[in-house]
């Protein structure tokens, strides 16, 4: 009796589990042409949410039969983790306006993305909107699984008041070359004007290199990606110079080795930050801002200096049942008119060429953003390769060990990282 009961319970439990796992997916052909209500996810940046809600309201007004609901991405340590979980659960929104390019290969592997190239006007629209910058967002199979939407080119933002307090000229900061940057940093810290000259997170998460090494490497190498033609590029003179520069910053305690549990610039603990244009709106009430490009060994003119794009894409997810509506909304949300509204509301750069001439009123009204707009024409994206997250994690592990904590020479760290990444590229398949 007891045995029979136990067996029944086990069968019941297994059946329940199987039923729970048996999620249904939309039929690809039907969904591609279907119209109807959809949901979109926005990042939790306050300005971006305000723009998203306004954009959706405008859409809903003229499309009452295709109602769009805007929500913020579910909470998670990173939006990528939340999106990945939603793909697996089959609960992702139709469109997510905050998809990191580094995660696109993973989402593709999970069968979570709808190839935008499959829409009849997909490739043409994306390329016409983004111009020459768009090709690096194509996936290995030559299709676009993401619409490159906005870039947040990383630059050096500094607090003019702290510079003045340290006896430095806030209108003409000496930050173009590595030696100038180090000298200025020493003055800032040794004068007691700030605890840290600059405070990027020194922690081990794979994406943290996008705020320290990658912008420096892009600038020093004249716009090289981490990987090109299936080969790591950073174990090179440019990579070694960028690593040595940051090693000096950490070794001399100009950049702390411990993560700050808050916002060091907003709290007046750091004089500078490596950030995108989103920070201007975030800091404007507390910090008198100045903006310069990331430094290079010899110093390059701002117009020739590259940086990391910190781009975010809009992507369509395979759980979407009304993809025709989603595609139309995607084009509406990235139209010239909405891009202008987005720029005005957030200060982030829509992925379009010649932003300053396209939206002159905005840049005349808010000149601090002009530097970011110019920088947006000289940006480097993360390489769109399978195993992207593994690759960045392998790099970060060696970076924290050699550059942040100085446990081995920086050259050795870069060489080890390069070897590890070469192996990962072999395991995942040569992308070239």
């Amino acid at each position: 009796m007891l045995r029979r009961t136990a067996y029944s319970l086990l069968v019941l439990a297994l059946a329940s589990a199987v039923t729970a796992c048996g999620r249904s997916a939309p039929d690809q052909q039907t969904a591609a042409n279907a119209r109807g209500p959809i949901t979109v996810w926005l990042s939790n940046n306050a300005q971006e949410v305000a723009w998203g809600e306004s954009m959706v309201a405008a859409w809903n007004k003229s499309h009452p039969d295709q109602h769009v609901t805007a929500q913020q991405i579910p909470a998670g340590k990173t939006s990528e983790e939340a999106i990945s979980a939603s793909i697996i659960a089959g609960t992702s929104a139709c469109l997510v306006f905050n998809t990191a390019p580094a995660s696109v290969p993973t989402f593709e592997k999970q069968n979570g993305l709808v190839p935008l190239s499959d829409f009849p006007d997909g490739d043409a629209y994306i390329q016409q909107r983004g111009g020459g910058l768009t090709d690096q967002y194509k996936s290995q199979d030559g299709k676009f699984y993401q619409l490159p939407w906005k870039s947040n080119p990383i630059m050096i933002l500094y607090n003019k008041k702290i510079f003045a307090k340290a006896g430095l000229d806030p209108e003409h900061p000496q930050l173009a070359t590595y030696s100038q940057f180090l000298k200025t940093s020493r003055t800032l810290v040794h004068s007691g004007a700030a605890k840290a000259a600059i405070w990027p997170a020194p922690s081990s998460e794979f994406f943290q290199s996008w705020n320290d090494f990658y912008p420096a490497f892009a600038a020093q190498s004249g716009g090289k990606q981490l990987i090109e033609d299936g080969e790591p590029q950073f174990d090179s003179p440019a990579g070694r110079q960028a690593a040595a520069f940051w090693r000096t910053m950490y070794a001399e305690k100009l950049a702390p080795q411990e993560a700050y549990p808050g916002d060091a610039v907003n709290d007046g603990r750091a004089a500078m930050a490596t950030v995108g244009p989103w920070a201007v709106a975030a800091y404007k009430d507390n910090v008198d801002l100045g903006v310069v490009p990331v430094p290079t060994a010899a110093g390059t003119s701002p117009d020739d200096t590259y940086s990391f794009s910190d781009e975010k894409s809009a992507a369509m997810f395979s759980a979407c049942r009304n993809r025709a509506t989603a595609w139309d909304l995607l084009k509406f949300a990235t139209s010239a008119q909405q891009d202008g509204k987005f720029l005005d509301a957030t200060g982030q750069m829509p992925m379009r060429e010649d932003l300053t001439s396209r939206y002159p009123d905005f840049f005349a009204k808010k000149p601090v953003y002009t530097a970011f707009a110019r920088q947006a024409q000289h940006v480097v994206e993360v390489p769109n390769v399978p195993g992207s997250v593994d690759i960045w994690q392998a790099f970060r592990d060696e970076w924290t060990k050699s550059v942040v904590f100085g446990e081995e020479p920086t050259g050795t760290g870069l060489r080890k990282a390069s070897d590890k990444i070469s192996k990962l590229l072999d395991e995942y398949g040569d992308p070239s």
Partner: protein
Amino acid sequence: MTKLRPTATATATATVTAGTTATAATTATAAASAGAAGRASGRAPGEAAGIRHRRARSRTGALFVTPYVLFLALVFAVPMVYTLWISVHRFYFTAPGTHVDSPWVGLSNYRDVFTDPVVGRAFLNIAVFLLINVPLTVILSLVLASALNAKIRFRAFFRAAYYLPYITASVALVAVWQFLFGSDGFVNNLLGSHAPDPSWLVNSHLAMPMIAFFVTWKQLGFFVMLYLAALQNVGKELYEAASVDGAGRVRQFFAVTVPGVRPATTLVLIYAIITGANLFSEPYLLTGGGGPDHASTSPVLLMYQKGIEQGHPDFAAALGVVLVAFVLVISLVARKLSERGN
């Protein structure tokens, strides 16, 4: 020790007496049941009724345990079996309704786990953690429980004070720890130039011990409570006898308290090992995802990074199975050691 032997014998006798009483009661119940069941099946009249009664009780019992069995099956057994399956296949999570091959790879994932130096580092970290945390937990909680068991002023306050960190969210306590041990924190300000460089939580030699101390402090209240409960069962007469025999407080502690709470010590030991081996939140929150050169990466944190962040659930599953085996082995060893004196 010799003087205390008669008392120990007295306890043993009491146990035997209690056992005899229980046996007698069981025998009487069994006899009555047997008579009832026998009447219904051509056996003795009492025997058949007894069988019916036992069946009814079995059904009621099964009904009561059904929710828990279901819970166990769904939340524990199914995922456990699924984990084992994932660990021997090339697997990654995909969108529902899409077909992706998950080929059998045998022990390949396990081979990857055993050859990954980061896994070795994570287990070494956990070994360091357990070597610090477990003895400290056992010793401090027993000593504090003994002190709090005595009639002291503000006893209720002290009991609550020790328990408070245990019921406070880790995130809030981490903030306290960072305030104390951050590079610009209270302790370093006190130490001045004697402060370690790099600082406590980012120092590859100090990060794991700091986490071990943090967890010991946070969980101490729970283990103190366990010992306090166990101490209620240690007879006062044993302390009185020991006192009459001339044993001081320290001698009483080692001769009466320690043997008296041995079953609780086994429980504390095993529980501390299991929770320690499953360490996640503290290295995640305190050291920014594993610290320098994986100095504070734990196996569970690595499972999270590999399985969730990097999309290798097969590797994470194999690592999880290895971790379960690791915990089982050291728990068994700890149990053998703690019960050796019995």
